[in-house]
């Protein structure tokens, strides 16, 4: 699948932002005054930047509000609702922290759950797609959630918790790669089943349907850069998991900032791979994956 920058930025930034909002909402950290303004602002900023980025890959963004209508069937629509609900619900909590209004925190817990729920809906947009076997597995939402929690914990300055989550993320990433690599074969689709010609014999492409590129080849049959996959996996693992975990053993803000930057970079690399490595079954018609 084509790793569009807008979608990578959307899912990584909003995931991290909602992770931080979850920690703030649940009161794991309770900043006050301008510290609260900056902290909540960071959470809101990341979430909103991510959501805005997601509109950049739309062909007709001016109609984006229609995306709220189909929550009964569509995970994308559910995500729209969950994100807006979270941002609205947590606003009074943020305000109360900033201006020391002392409003009750109960709503913050609901907001925290909703924030993680939002990340879940994001992950389900990909997980639901049966035609991309690598994504179509419960480990996908798990990865999105743990990424969000880890990023959130780092930004919330929770040294120990964040380090533990880094380790958990490492385990999840290993599982993602291990399971993901076998998913296409497990889905059992071949050029033979795609064309149904396996009932006659061994199928091979004789001539392509068109000599130039098209939307399908660009969007779903993205093969560029897969050859560096192993290298990129190591980089993503080092930057998203190992380095931040080590940095978090240090004390003070600089360590947290460095850990956050490293984790963010690693997360972006991992998300790039999440798309670039994912193979759509339509590639079978073209003899490509």
């Amino acid at each position: 699948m084509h790793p569009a920058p807008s979608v990578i930025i959307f899912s990584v930034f909003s995931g991290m932002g909602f992770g931080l909002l979850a920690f703030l909402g649940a009161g794991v950290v309770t900043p006050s005054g301008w510290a609260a303004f900056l902290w909540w602002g960071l959470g809101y900023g990341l979430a909103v930047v991510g959501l805005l980025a997601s509109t950049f890959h739309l062909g007709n963004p001016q109609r984006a509000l229609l995306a709220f209508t189909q929550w009964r069937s569509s995970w994308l629509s559910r995500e729209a609702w969950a994100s807006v609900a979270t941002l609205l619900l947590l606003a009074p909590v943020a305000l109360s922290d900033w201006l020391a209004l002392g409003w009750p925190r109960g709503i913050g817990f609901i907001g925290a759950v909703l924030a993680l729920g939002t990340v879940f809906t994001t992950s389900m947009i990909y997980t639901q797609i049966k035609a991309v076997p690598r994504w179509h597995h419960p480990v996908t939402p798990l990865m999105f959630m743990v990424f969000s929690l880890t990023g959130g914990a780092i930004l919330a300055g929770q040294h120990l918790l964040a380090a533990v989550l880094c380790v958990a993320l490492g385990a999840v990433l290993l599982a993602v790669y291990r399971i993901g690599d076998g998913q296409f074969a497990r889905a059992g689709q071949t050029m033979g089943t795609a064309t149904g010609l396996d009932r006659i014999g061994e199928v091979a492409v004789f001539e392509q349907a068109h000599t130039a590129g098209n939307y399908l080849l660009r969007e779903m049959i993205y093969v560029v850069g897969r050859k560096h996959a192993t290298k990129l996996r190591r980089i993503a693992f080092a930057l998203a998991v190992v380095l931040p975990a080590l940095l978090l053993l240090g004390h003070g803000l600089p360590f947290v900032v460095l850990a956050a930057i490293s984790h963010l970079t690693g997360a972006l690399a991992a998300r790039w791979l999440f798309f670039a490595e994912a193979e759509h079954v339509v590639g079978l018609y073209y003899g490509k994956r």
Partner: protein
Amino acid sequence: MTCLPATTQKKLGLAIDLDTCVGCQACVTACKGWNDQGYGARLSDQNPYGADPSGTFLNRVHSYAVQPEAGPAQTINFPRSCLHCDDAPCVTVCPTGASYKRTEDGIVLVNEDACIGCGLCAWACPYGARELDQAAGVMKKCTLCVDRIYNETLPEEDREPACVRGCPTGARHFGDFSDPDSKVSRLSAERGGYALMPDMGTKPVNRYLPPRKKDHPQEASLLAPLLDIKASGFAGWLDKILGKI
């Protein structure tokens, strides 16, 4: 509404005969020609005369070489367009309600005025039947020529999809698969029509008719007796000499 109808009154679709299809691409052109000026946004081309041309098509024809266990390989041409699936995943993922399946005839359509061009439906389709038009930013797909099949301003014989009408070998057949007596249902039953990637759970309506069994090629040439010519005269002498060396 992007929830799928529990049942549809008809199941309109195509039966595509892989035995007759000669891979001429006439259906590709007929489809592009008709749908470029009718239903919804045009099917745009990018850089059509340049080095890297690309464009939106609702129907593509592939060619495969299939090697049976015994006998020579076969070339099989393979048209690919929307299968108007009963359990269309492209419809349920759509956040705006732009993609829908019609209750009356089962046709899967896109309401372009509501489409935000997110591309998710194209991801959800296992068959590559949807292409996002790069000029209009909306999703294009086979409409089963909904603006022909019910169009009373067209002569009766033209009230079928452009690809069916345009096919010079009659390899594409249009009809109602919910009626077991329809032409397409009978064809499919007689010829062992099959669905593509049934394990994807999409329940396609369109059926593909597999190529018929090939004759066994004659083992010996009909000309064999004639070919067994005994050389005589000078040629015979030469044959004998050369054979001995």
